[in-house]
């Protein structure tokens, strides 16, 4: 199973897990790291390294999910690319994470991630605009 590690500023990662599990149920191999102000980054780095070593030993693929491009969580993950192979998506939202989790047993992980990314991006909508135009000719109702 694809190991998923969510790392974010503050407790966003735990929040996303809680929302996700409310909808899709309890998740396995789903780790969260909340990077708070006084966080010991060196010890987080070391734990991440251990997780990657563990997974690599058993042939398990790892996906990192972070919140901001070049934010602190992102910068914790990127140096690990030098010695480990893994997937990493940033700018995450709940629809994206749900899609990935629902398809984590896919044969073709890169392909699945590409499609999930697309879906995650199109999940963001201006609702009033969207619904107004979907309601189209029924202008008198609105």
């Amino acid at each position, binding site marked *: 199973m694809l190991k998923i590690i969510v790392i974010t500023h503050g407790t966003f990662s735990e929040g996303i897990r809680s929302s996700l599990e409310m909808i899709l149920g309890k998740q396995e191999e789903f780790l969260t790291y909340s990077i708070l*102000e006084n966080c010991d980054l060196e010890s987080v780095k070391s734990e991440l390294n251990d997780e990657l070593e563990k997974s690599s030993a058993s042939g398990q693929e790892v996906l990192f999910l972070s919140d*901001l*491009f*070049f934010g*602190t969580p992102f*910068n914790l993950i990127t140096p690990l690319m*030098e010695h480990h192979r893994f997937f990493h998506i940033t700018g995450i939202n709940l629809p994206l994470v749900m899609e990935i989790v629902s398809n984590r047993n896919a044969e073709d992980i890169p392909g699945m991630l590409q499609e999930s990314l697309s879906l995650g991006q199109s999940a963001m909508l201006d609702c009033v605009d969207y619904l107004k135009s979907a309601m189209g000719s029924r202008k008198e109702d609105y």
Partner: protein
Amino acid sequence: MKNLTLTRIDDRLIHGQVVAFWMKEYSIDKILIIDDTLSKDMFMSRIYKAAAPAGVEVLLLDREEGLAFLKQEPTEKEGIFLIVKVPERIEELVNAGIEIPRVILGGMGARNDRKTFNRNVSASKSEIECFSRILAKGTHIVYQMIPSDKPIPIQNFIE
């Protein structure tokens, strides 16, 4: 001597939206990071350079190279954003004759030897003394995370 459009002390360097906000307000085509450790990390140097926004070059230099770069003649339409992690880098440049009229303090993380002033700024006794020496030379130093924040002169909260 090069003209610095923006100078910042932030140990997170180019991070997330913060730098993006600053780059929106000023015309920047070069981000200059002066940091001995990072300049020698070949892998991370490549990552930082790759992450540069379109039209922006990221230079990762050590102290010597950084000073040499800043001593060069300015190029027309050049916009340089200097980012360092600690005040000592600024003091070295000022002492070497580089003009740095204004420094924006964005972040210095908590550490054992540092006293915490707010959630983004912690500083050790020697760093505070360094700030005082830089201020004495006429450089303005303000604490300001993003351009829309009110800049706070550091004298107000760093004792």
